[in-house]
């Protein structure tokens, strides 16, 4: 059994860990509120954008000559996966969930004999993926400097993706991120952004629009913007999810530390009492023998 001194030290160390996790939880909770707010505020933009594109693509007469970003290159040989994770750890299963989802997709792609390229956004994803898929990672981006997700960063990623697409480096692009549902649940998502996937969405309106300039021109201008918008949406959802996940992870950690302190305190008190009892017995038996 550990000595009294050791126990005392352990209790102290667990207590200080608990203080840290508690502080992290508070910070995450404060940040979560902001992140959640901006995720919710950002939704109208991407929804509207989607709507406009939907209306446009329905209105397009010549489907054969539609922009490649909408209809795809006609083949599915090379897949580009944009895996979006956080830059910081200690957020529970947040990063691992995305990675798990992404990895199962990678396996599927590779099994089908297709080519795989990966862009990682956020350093944690890169750390986890480079061991197995190191040779597939073509780009690694991280926005450690920017405090909050902003559109400017998303645009940078979007432009890069489009550049690569236009250079014919890939045919299909999928982004991986965590969708924020509530504080304890985040759902890892795989969303295909090139070619645009409108499956399952009903024709929202039969109304015809007037276009100025014509559809093709609008579409070819709009689609790259949509890519950035979708990436931005993913970034917002991700940052809210990260804080939520961190908050619940830290909450658990704080609780576990509390339990541990209780257990250790009991053990400490027991050994202290045992020591006293032992001393008493020694004294009494010593006195009796006289």
């Amino acid at each position, binding site marked *: 059994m550990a000595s009294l001194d050791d126990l005392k030290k352990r209790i102290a160390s667990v207590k200080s860990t608990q203080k840290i996790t508690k502080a992290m939880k508070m910070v995450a909770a404060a940040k979560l509120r902001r992140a959640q707010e901006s995720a919710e505020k*950002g939704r109208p933009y*991407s929804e509207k954008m989607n709507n406009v594109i939907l209306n446009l693509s329905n209105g397009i007469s010549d489907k054969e000559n539609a922009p490649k970003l909408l209809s795809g290159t006609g083949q599915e040989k090379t897949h580009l996966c944009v895996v979006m994770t956080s830059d910081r750890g200690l957020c529970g299963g947040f990063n691992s969930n995305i990675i798990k989802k992404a990895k199962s997709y990678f396996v599927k792609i590779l099994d089908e004999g297709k080519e795989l390229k990966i862009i990682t956004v956020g350093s944690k994803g890169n750390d986890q993926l480079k061991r197995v898929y190191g040779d597939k990672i073509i780009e690694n981006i991280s926005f450690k400097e920017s405090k909050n997700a902003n559109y400017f960063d998303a645009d940078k990623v979007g432009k890069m993706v489009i550049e690569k697409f236009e250079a014919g480096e890939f045919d299909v692009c999928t982004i991986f991120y965590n969708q924020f549902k509530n504080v304890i649940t985040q759902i890892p998502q795989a969303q295909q952004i090139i070619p645009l996937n409108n499956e399952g969405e009903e024709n929202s*309106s039969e*109304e015809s629009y007037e276009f100025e300039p014509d559809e093709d021109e609008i579409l070819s201008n709009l689609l790259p913007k949509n890519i950035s*918008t979708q990436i931005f949406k993913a970034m917002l959802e991700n940052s809210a999810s990260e804080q939520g996940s961190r908050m619940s992870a830290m909450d658990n950690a704080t609780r576990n530390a509390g339990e541990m302190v209780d257990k250790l305190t009991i053990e400490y008190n027991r050994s202290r009492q045992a020591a006293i009892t032992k001393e008493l017995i020694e004294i009494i038996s010593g006195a009796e023998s006289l």
Partner: protein
Amino acid sequence: MSEEFKVEIVNPEKCFLVKDDVSEVVVPAFEGEMGILKDHISIISFLKPGIIKVLSKSGDENYYVEDGIVEFKNNNLSILTSTIFNLADMDKSKQQDLLKQAEEEANKTDINDQSKFLADQKVEVLKTLN
């Protein structure tokens, strides 16, 4: 019948402006300025750098935008833009900053015609503000 309709200006971060008592909106569409009144036909168009004028009972407002998309449907005007400033909140130094940026962009030699055109537009609009 009232001659008012609803306008929503959205940027990626949030709903920038929502108003439902608007009588007219003038947007700098790609092929020229366009005034939108109630019961306009459904339209989708692009914005070039310029000034959006929102005319309503509660007062007129002017916004500077650099790009965007307008969609008008069922008396709902949505404007999606990534860069927007309320002219009332924009002071001289901010304008100068933007102008400087735009001029720098316009003076680049390695950009294509379209971005050159957009940058020139920006410079022009910002100069008229000053």
